[in-house]
């Protein structure tokens, strides 16, 4: 059974057992159900779901930190007299497939420090990005590959090994 469905089902069962229909009981049931799914991944077959949910939580924290860093960096560039922009266009080989996943990647790349996505190659396997504030092309590529690693860990059932070391 799908992990999320099972988790929601457990939450509803908890709410009914608690004898009170409210968002608070539903939330408590959801968290308790998640704990149950974490404790018995083998029996319920939800190891992938638990791993992906934890990866998503970690990704949200990582993304909020990146967003803050990006904003402070660009704000300093805007206020400084002579900002060291050093703009360049880099090509990044992609492992992420699918239109919606790549659109999400574009959004995240545009919100992370120093990079703005420019376009894809016709076979959708290379992302071109405009980078500022990075010392060389390798550093700009590494920051995009880091985001892609996080996204792959949230989506794929099993985390694939990175081909390019950041």
């Amino acid at each position: 059974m799908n992990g999320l469905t099972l988790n929601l089902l457990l939450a509803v069962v908890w709410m009914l057992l608690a004898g009170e229909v409210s968002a608070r009981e539903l939330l408590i049931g959801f968290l308790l159900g998640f704990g149950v799914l974490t404790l018995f991944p083998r029996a319920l077959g939800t190891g992938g779901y638990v791993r992906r949910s934890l990866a998503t939580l970690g990704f949200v924290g990582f993304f909020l930190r990146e967003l803050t860093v990006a904003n402070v960096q660009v704000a300093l560039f805007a206020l400084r007299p002579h900002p060291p922009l050093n703009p360049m266009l880099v090509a990044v080989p992609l492992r992420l497939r699918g239109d919606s996943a790549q659109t999400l990647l574009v959004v995240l790349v545009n919100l992370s420090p120093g990079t703005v996505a420019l376009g894809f190659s016709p076979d959708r396997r290379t992302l071109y990005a405009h980078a500022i504030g990075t010392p060389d092309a390798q550093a700009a590529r590494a920051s995009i590959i880091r985001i892609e690693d996080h996204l792959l860990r949230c989506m794929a059932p099993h985390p694939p090994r990175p081909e390019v070391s950041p």
Partner: protein
Amino acid sequence: MSDFSPLRDIPILIGAFFVLTAAIGLVRFPDLYTRLHASSKLVTLGSAGIFLGAALELTDAAAFTRLAAVLLFHFLTTPLTAYLIAQAAYLRGLPPLLGGGGRRGIDEWGALGQAEQVAQADRDAQRAMTAEGE
């Protein structure tokens, strides 16, 4: 400052500060591509801060859901418009200022101003992919 409430005012002040720095960046940065950095990152966090402060101030379910919808929508669309504008400008031949390495700078795409060619290659690749699928 008699009615200073930190939960409401700190997000609004941070948001307003980032919106103002975005405007300063838009005026001061040297070319379109660097300006898009200011417009995508700073505007997203700035508007998000103001919407968050407004949602915490208007303690009302109707206001909260609307502001949450606007906030989520802005998080998705503001970076996407930056991407679309950058792509259109590049493929229509607006040269970016490039620094770093070599006399002409680092440009690893090399499709400046080739909108027709890139669109054609895109269509060919799509057709090949659908043919492969069948």
